[in-house]
């Protein structure tokens, strides 16, 4: 099937099997390799993108569900917003190996859009679906705390 998506603000026409995963459409058809596969079953959050403004797990979304959808990936989001947050995210130790990072950044920026000053518990709730194996999550909390201090 052929479908039109709006990816990072641009119209993209893609074609393939209706059950192909949005993750593969982004990575293999559109070359947006920032979106990662960590488990392929919606547990780890590495493939998180925004679909119509909401965080979704792109490994669980079939092509058939994507028609006319607005999709924002880490590439688009990082280029467009929150430079200070991203820099702080690096310098506060939110990143080590980086494999979970795109999914965490997408979820974090979605949270910050709705709630510019989340507390520790709100951060935990928002990021509960994003696994990180390196940082112990403390560096991620520091990045949010610094964001609050900088305000």
């Amino acid at each position, binding site marked *: 099937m052929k479908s039109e998506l709006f990816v990072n603000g641009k119209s993209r026409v893609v074609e393939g099997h209706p059950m192909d995963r949005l993750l593969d459409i982004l990575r293999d058809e559109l070359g947006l390799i920032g979106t990662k*596969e960590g488990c392929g079953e919606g547990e780890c959050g590495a493939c998180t993108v925004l679909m119509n403004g909401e965080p979704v797990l792109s490994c669980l979304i079939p092509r058939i569900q994507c028609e006319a959808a607005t999709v924002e990936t880490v590439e688009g989001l990082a280029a467009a917003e929150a430079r200070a947050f991203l820099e702080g995210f*690096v310098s506060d130790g939110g990143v080590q*190996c*980086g494999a979970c990072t*795109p999914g965490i950044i997408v979820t974090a920026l979605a949270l910050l859009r709705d709630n510019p000053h989340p507390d520790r518990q709100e951060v935990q709730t928002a990021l509960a679906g*994003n696994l*990180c*194996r390196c940082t*112990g999550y403390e*560096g991620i909390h520091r990045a949010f705390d610094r964001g609050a201090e900088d305000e």
Partner: protein
Amino acid sequence: MTLLGSSPPRPDGASKVDGTLRYANDLPMDGAWHGATLRSPYPHARIRALQWHPERAPAGAVCVTAADLPGPNGVQLLDDEWPVLAAELVQHVGEPVAVVAAPSKLAARQALRAIEVDYEPLEPTLDLSTAGRQEPLYSLELKSGEAEEELARAHLLVEGTYRTGHQEHIYIECQVMSAGWEADGSLVVEGSMQCPYFVHRSLIHVFGLTAERVVVKATPMGGGFGGKEDFPSVIALHAALLAKACGHPVRIAYDRHEDIIGTTKRHPSVVTHRAAVDAEGHLQAMEIDVVLDGGAFRTLSPVVLSRAVLHAAGPYRCPNVHIRGKVVRTNTAPNGAFRGFGAPQVQFAMERQMDRIARRLGLDPLEIRLRNVLEEGDRLPTGQTMDESCSARLCLEKAARETDFKQRWRHLEAQRRDIADGDSMPGVGLSLYFHGAGFTGNGERVLQSVIEAALLEDGRIEVRTAAVEMGQGCDTVLPMMAAEASGLELEDVVLAPPDTSRVPDSGPSVASRTSMVVGGEVAHVVSEIRDRVLAWWSDRQESGAAHTVEDGLVRGEKGQSWPFREVARSYAEAMGPLVVSRQHEPPEWQVFDEETYQGVAYPTYAFGADVVEVEVDPDTLEVSPKKVTAVCEVGRVLHEKLCVGQVEGGTLQAVAWGLMEEVKLEEGRYLNDRLATYIIPTIKDSPEMEVHLLEKPWKGGAFGAKGVGELPMDGGAPAAVSAVENATGIEVDAIPATPERFLALTSARRQVPSEPEDPERARGADR
């Protein structure tokens, strides 16, 4: 210059937050085919027949079995006992039996169905006690003093058996490797790996190629934790075999399910302690038996066991010690390298044993440790005398002070009986631990690591090592060490990619050795290039006076200055290429006798103490870690934020290993072979962490550094479980302390005594 200890941003940070960094599976396929693996469904079976039916497979698909190997059927690690592909026998569920390649992922999966295997199931060895009756994969013994005699006349004898389970690495990036053959017959392999030269060696071994004809390139890794030390050699061999068979480059990218069932894990362990203790709680003698489950093949188990035996007595003083260790074979996936490498298992046992001894004497966990803590001048069971870099007491006292441990532990012990049903039960626990820095024994001497630096035409210095960035931050820290030592700016130093055609074998990125060993040599070779450039420059100046380099500037004696990079560029123009290389030599006095297990097993040790606070739900028995205070003494903090990050991440892995992570096997088959069922902590499960870094520089190390990567893995689990005991009064001697295991212990009434067993002893102890 005070670069070290500061926290410049990591150079790979920006490309990680904006998603532009290319990991192994993000590289263009460039016509590569996809590989897939046929795996054994049996824990133990004979392969009666194996038939590939190309007519049933997608067009062009190829299949490779053990019969097609061009050389020995063995992955070259310590030896080559680990088969590349199963030949006559399969020895664990998930063992690769055949590999296929096809133009698409789907076609590769379909091709697997064109292989028919006839298995004759055999009786598997699954139980450690059964396995223990067979010939071990490896065994070791370490003896000092007269442990048996002392135990026989012990004032107090304390015995315990402690068990730990598997742990799966769960690096977020699964294993991935690509291989392709060049027209001239050379082989190029690229993928996610910690040790490019390990992979290089295995490829040479199996394909019979000369070293120059094999090129191995390590990509930035999405996590390793030891899981990409041993296994990448297997998958690289598979990809190279398939590429040869189909005439295209081949990529094998494991999905999570395959990665869990097929790859190495942390060794499960059973450690049995017998200790003789005097009335004051001083250790008089210890007899320790360490049994590790090696899984189906030897892999790196002998060195894991070695580290286990050398850490089994913990950071404590004890004059008479007898440690026996063995690795046994079971029909489960081979166990291998995982952060800590045998030390977390034995230190879990030692720490639980210390808590048990304390209870027998009516002491608290802090007091028993303070009475036995290893200090400068004390000797380890290997006979090594601790030098001034020993900091166990420092860590212990700091952790206790920061958390008011003694008071709180005693308070919670006292109030435990008063807690009404339904209230969550708070507890606090303590652990003390150490970690030998770098390779074990004569490992560094055998490795003969070579580090190189070269002056580039533009005047920058290229550092050439095989160290791989896996998140730990070596790409940040190595240039810092070079700049600090030489007076150059960070920008004057560049790192060559870890590609065997461009960098020498500086050893594997394991054993917390990269900063301490490789970094130290980097500082030397870069400084030597600076010296040569400087000498040349001085000669060309009228006065010929000595010059110095500071902040990237060459300074003359009359106050004039020139950017080093400009001076170096003139040198390169005038003199041509300049390459300096150096082989790492461990200190002369680091001599270890592999036969007697006496001598200096590690040149120095890093130390740590953790205090973990938990809450236990009395209805569900679920344990929530609330806060961890980790005090780690690492010699010298090279990059503060990265160092803190290592401690935080390692501590969470350790606490999770103690409380929740469990590989469940039934008849050798996995019950939880996906991320939906193998549970690692989310941000919601994770405690608040407070890290205190201490420094007692080691004079032989790079700027005093002792290594930090593995240290925090040693302390989290015993401290968390000790806190559970404080909260519930139930003694946990096996991990993970999941609610299920806990329920069994609760029903068995494994309650610790609320009063000391022998009041007289307790009084003696309080003197």
